[in-house]
């Protein structure tokens, strides 16, 4: 009976509650078995779902990478741009459509290695974007090379003896550049993560949500972190929630301690606020 129940569903699958946010016709996605990008992505869709904002008022922009494939799976206006350039593309779109919620969903390499400059400048401008960064400590898509997020000594395909560089503290960088909202979670903080993304949508200004992710195929395997489940469990286990601390103190050591929490949530005039301060008559013209 039980088995039949499943079979029945398999034959004519029911409707997943996020179906209307998902390009069903593109499933299954390309993410590896056990890769938690899917979970993070689901969390983002759940936040959109729960936001009570018209779906048509969202757009999702990605760069290139495994995480960057998200834009292709979300059934919203969505753009899969070039490596590192999601943020400036999103900036242009946001200026054209200031009332829309623009989400940038991409990887650490995309947003912080090749795309680091755009990140800091958009944060400086306090451009009203929600940035969701899947930090899996590597370039998943190209098979796991060292990135600017890779922990010291970690093995990657281009650091066969271990990484000889130190990673960024992404949250600290975001804060230094001017982000209005900065949070970090691991995948298993599903509810808190979803909640953070929701907060980010409603935050006026540049919001940054970093999600610690596993990349079991490229990063996990090379560093002998065990099966996918173990990795995310481990990250969750060593995580410590420290809300409101300055992110410079938000340690991220995948062996010992991952400090998570909402670190920054400040009011700071956005790009649009300041634009309208300088060009007050425009406000009327725009009919806002």
């Amino acid at each position, binding site marked *: 009976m039980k088995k039949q129940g499943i079979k029945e569903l398999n034959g004519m699958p*029911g409707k*997943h509650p996020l179906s209307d946010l998902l390009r069903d016709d593109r*499933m299954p996605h390309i993410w590896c*078995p056990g890769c938690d990008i899917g979970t993070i*992505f689901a*969390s983002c869709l759940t936040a959109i779902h729960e936001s009570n904002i018209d779906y048509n008022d969202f757009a999702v922009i990605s760069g290139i990478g495994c995480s960057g494939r998200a834009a292709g799976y979300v059934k919203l206006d969505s753009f899969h741009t070039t490596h590192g350039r999601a943020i400036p593309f999103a900036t242009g779109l946001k200026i054209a459509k200031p009332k829309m919620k623009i989400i940038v969903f991409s990887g650490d390499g995309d947003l912080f290695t090749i795309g680091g400059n755009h990140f800091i400048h958009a944060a400086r401008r306090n451009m009203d974007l929600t940035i969701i960064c899947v930090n899996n400590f590597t370039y998943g898509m190209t098979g796991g090379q060292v990135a600017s997020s890779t922990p010291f000594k970690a093995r990657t395909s281009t650091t066969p003896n271990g990484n000889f560089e130190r990673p960024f503290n992404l949250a600290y960088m975001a804060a230094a550049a001017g982000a209005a909202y900065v949070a970090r979670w691991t995948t*298993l903080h599903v509810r808190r993560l979803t909640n953070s993304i929701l907060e980010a949508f409603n935050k006026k200004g540049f919001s940054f949500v970093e999600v610690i992710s596993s990349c079991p195929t490229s990063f996990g395997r090379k560093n002998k972190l065990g099966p996918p489940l173990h990795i995310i469990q481990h990250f969750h286990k060593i995580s410590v929630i420290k809300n409101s601390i300055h992110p410079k103190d938000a340690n991220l050591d995948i062996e010992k301690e991952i400090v998570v929490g909402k670190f920054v949530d400040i009011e700071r005039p956005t790009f649009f606020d300041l634009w309208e301060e300088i060009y007050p008559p425009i406000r009327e013209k725009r009919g806002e």
Partner: protein
Amino acid sequence: MKYWRKPLDYEEIKVPRGRVSIIEDRCKGCSFCVEYCPRDVLVISKHFNRKGYHPPYVEKPEDCVNCKFCEVICPEFAIYVEDMDE
């Protein structure tokens, strides 16, 4: 999973029930759902799906409390839970 523990007044309140559905061919057998189900409703099956993975099956449907944790954690959008009380 600190914040997913059962409410303390678990026995007293009306227990919600959920109906779990699995879209088998989307599943990649990661077992997240199985491991994180607070009620051990799910078990990994022995058979392969079309992609060569072992999807879970619902072993104890009556135990499901509709907490939806399997649904939110599944990276494949392969499992979801509907409210049975309605």
